């Protein structure tokens, strides 16, 4: 099978999840090509050879500098049609979800998303997709080519880099549709360096929309202090301006794997889950008994966080005082 992997990059580095998908494609025994699109990305693109790409396509154009999806759809559509790839794989991000879906419409090509595995069964590509809050795993496929797939964040680890590879290099002609260049980037995100570092914390207490308002983050902060941990937040509350982006856990935030993760007022949608499911022990406090987080929390407490969290802080503080009595 001939596969094209769309390799995303940021700040002069190839994105880890994209390389993970590349590694998986190579492992499936495919003839694997990659596309790197951007402005002044030639040297960067060549690095993909070391991760197993046999053919590297480079779309290098100032019009591709901003990470916007529609120009990338144009480039991919042309390349896929010319080269006849049977599958096009993407590591899911904010950018690639839009690219893959746009390409699906442009080529009338089937797209399966949120896949956590890929396999060949009887020569056919089969994806595994968790559904209904990950309570069912669905085997999905495609009825025609090209087959488009978005792979869930953090699914495949990047392969080990080997030498420089011996990939064939091709420059891709960039010609864009009128409507594809109408959306323009006014201000592009930069890595936020301000705020607490949560990636190395042993204990994390995270707050979500169930807190009811930014003022209630104090409850989370006090519990985190008692447990000697860091404070984290969900995308919803960061977007709402209750807490800084640097503390966000999930798909568009940090991926963490602490010894203990306490989720307060967090429903635990999949975008959050992918950022913290590697935690050793997960405790969830939420008033909604149907919250997805209860499907994967080691201990779930259904109740009012305003009652439970202060009491919990008090109990932990009392334990700490008993262990470390003031002399």
């Amino acid at each position, binding site marked *: 099978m001939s596969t094209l992997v769309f390799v995303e990059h940021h700040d002069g580095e190839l994105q880890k999840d994209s390389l993970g998908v590349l590694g998986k494609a190579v492992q499936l025994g495919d003839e694997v090509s990659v596309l790197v699109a951007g402005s002044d990305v030639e040297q960067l693109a060549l690095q993909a050879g070391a991760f197993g790409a046999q053919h590297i396509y480079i779309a290098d154009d100032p019009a591709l500098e901003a990470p916007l999806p529609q120009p990338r759809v144009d480039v991919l559509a042309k390349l896929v049609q010319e080269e006849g790839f049977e599958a096009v794989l993407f590591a899911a991000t904010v950018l690639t979800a839009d690219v893959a879906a746009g390409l699906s*419409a442009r080529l009338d090509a089937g797209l399966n998303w949120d896949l956590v595995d890929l396999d060949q069964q009887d020569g056919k590509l089969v994806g595994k997709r968790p559904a209904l809050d990950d309570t069912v795993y669905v085997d999905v496929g495609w009825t025609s080519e090209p087959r488009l797939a978005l792979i869930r964040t953090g699914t495949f680890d990047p392969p080990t880099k080997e030498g420089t590879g011996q990939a064939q290099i091709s420059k891709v002609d960039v010609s864009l549709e009128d409507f594809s260049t*109408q959306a323009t980037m006014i201000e592009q995100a930069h890595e936020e360096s301000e705020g607490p570092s949560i990636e190395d914390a042993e204990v994390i207490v995270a707050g979500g929309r169930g807190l009811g308002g930014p003022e209630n983050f104090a409850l989370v902060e006090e519990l985190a202090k008692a447990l000697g941990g860091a404070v984290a937040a969900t*995308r919803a509350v960061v977007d709402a301006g209750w807490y800084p982006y640097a503390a966000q856990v999930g798909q568009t935030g940090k991926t963490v794997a602490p010894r203990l993760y306490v989720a307060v007022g967090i429903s635990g949608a999949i975008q959050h889950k992918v950022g913290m499911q590697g935690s050793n022990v997960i405790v969830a406090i939420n008033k909604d008994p149907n919250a997805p987080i209860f499907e994967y929390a080691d201990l779930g407490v259904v109740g009012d966080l305003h009652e439970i969290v202060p009491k919990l802080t008090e109990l932990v503080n009392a334990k700490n005082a008993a262990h470390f009595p003031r002399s």
Partner: protein
Amino acid sequence: MKIAVCVKAVPEQARRIDPGTKRLDRSGEPTLNPFDANAVEEALQLKGDDGGSEVVLVSLGPARTLEALRKALAMGADRVVLVSDDAAAGSDLVATSYALAKGLEREQPDLVLFGQQANDSDGAVLWAAVADRLRRPLISQVAELTLADGSVRGKRQTEFGYDVIQAPLPAVVAVSDAINEPRYPSLKGIMGAKKKPQETVVLSDLGVEAERVGEAGSRTEVYALNDPPPRGETVRIEDDGTGAEKVVEFLLERKAL
């Protein structure tokens, strides 16, 4: 200005996949996809007091979808266009985006709004497919939206922080669920909702060929349903006033304290 909000009816309860058809069981009571309420709210805010502006709900689904969309009418949307046709059942992204784009082309809106995702299929991609079919600029995951001088400007979160993207109208915008707090329908709104125009069109009205939708028009399929991989035991308790104590006991037991 005409704003079209693409909305979906989702099953309110008992979300399950029918092992026979391998499709989502939609026999339960339909309700407005909660993420779409944010898009409806944003449309109503953009419309404001402008009597010349209109908010049109556009949906694809079975006839009973109308019941679920009444909530959005009660919030203040002006009318509904429901594309409903038995041939469209089981449509995937390719087929759905095609039929929906045809419905939108008929309305010629200045702005097309989508919610962040469907809470039944967890799909969060439809807008990009529709934008491509309509050949219009796209801004997705928008947490702050402003409209000025015939352009939309959206602030949105990515893996690296916040982008600000601008596009001229007509455009397609997908909003995040953090963009606003959807209003509750007023009693007057609820009473008036039933009387608002609710039009149902079939595929042939839109010039959509039957083979472009449903299973025939879809390019993906489902082979099998499996149990999720086993994970450690999960314990769920109701707080009866001793919830905090039980958490501490649990943490001590798991040596996490």
